[in-house]
């Protein structure tokens, strides 16, 4: 049976999004040329986009990348926060779930 993306969470940066950036310390603003929208992003969201820069990743792989980058230990709250971040970024058109195979 085919699984929904929610059950097979591989994500990619939206290939159609063209982002221009402004940054002040850990506050990031991304202007999406395609949509004309301006997004205020925190460090977590920017780290997620960085993790997806090399290609589609599962939630677990994104979590690993972020934990490595920040030298942190895994826990369920972190994974849930990343999943929430992905959902928000998906609603903004910045990332999208990959169709399951």
């Amino acid at each position, binding site marked *: 049976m085919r699984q929904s993306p929610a059950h097979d969470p591989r994500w990619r940066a939206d290939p159609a999004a063209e982002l*221009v950036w*402004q940054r*002040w*310390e850990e*506050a990031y*603003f991304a*202007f999406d*040329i395609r949509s*004309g929208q*301006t997004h*205020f992003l925190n460090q977590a969201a920017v780290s997620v986009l960085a993790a997806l820069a090399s290609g589609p990743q599962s939630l677990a792989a994104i979590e690993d990348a972020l934990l490595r980058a920040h030298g942190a230990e895994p826990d369920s709250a972190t994974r849930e926060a990343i999943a929430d971040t992905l959902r928000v970024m998906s609603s903004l058109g910045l990332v999208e779930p990959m169709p399951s195979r």
Partner: protein
Amino acid sequence: MPMPTLKRLALNELHARCADGLNLRLGPFVMRLVGRDRRLAQCLYDYYPDYPLAPDDSFADGEIRLLGQSLVARVLRRPLCLGLEDGVPFTECAPGALLAHLEWAINWCVASRAHHYLMLHAAVIERNGHALLLPGQPGAGKSTLCAWLIHRGWRLLSDEFTLIRDCELTIDPLPRLIPLKNESIALIREQVPAATFGPSIPGTRKGTVSHLSPPLDHLRRMAQTARPRWVVFPQYDADASAEFSALHPAECFSQLTQNAFNYTVLGREAFERAGALTDAVDAWRLRYRNLQQAEALLNALTGGSQTC
């Protein structure tokens, strides 16, 4: 050589010119004012005497027409009607409110057309070539504070529009009449006895409005640009003690983009220009309860105490 100003025209001559269309220079813009009704000429004669005339063949950034009224309409004191180039009615007003509606029509022409600028909804004043931007939502007190400061050593660039011309952040002045509202009218009349006001116009959508004329020297210098140095978000609060608090650049950027008239129109250009502006200024929030207090704090911030 300075351009001739409107006051070189006698009222009758002005009336005749308005019938064909009179080009008035307002900062970087030319507004063409048209109407055979003598009340338009009288309004210009009374409240715009020191504004430069632009040549008749100038390109006009906007055209505002006082539409003709029949004799019956005049006798019955029907509302006046202002229209734009296409002759379609734009706004109606009582004869005594013509100045306020003319000013609003000019605002509309600027805000809806001048997209070669990043236009911020902010008062902007200048001293020693450095501009201080005062963005604020209605009621924040920016016009009142601006009206006070331009009589205390600052030059008026604009009470309403901060016009950022380019990536170098050049600000073009647009010194217009300042529409003070309600309690601010008596306050500035009392604090600045030499200030020149238009009529009090009650019952507008913003309450009672009276227009403060910019100092003559500020009009003469309407071609002198400035660069941004500070952004201060004022908030009048009668019950609060005065305080400055530094604003994080991210908060400043966010507020500036929300204050822009044409952010979504300009898109990436506005995003980049607002970012450059944020990098170029010190940003603060100012809470104040009287004008002298605000002035003292602003002088401390900007390193000046010059008055004139």
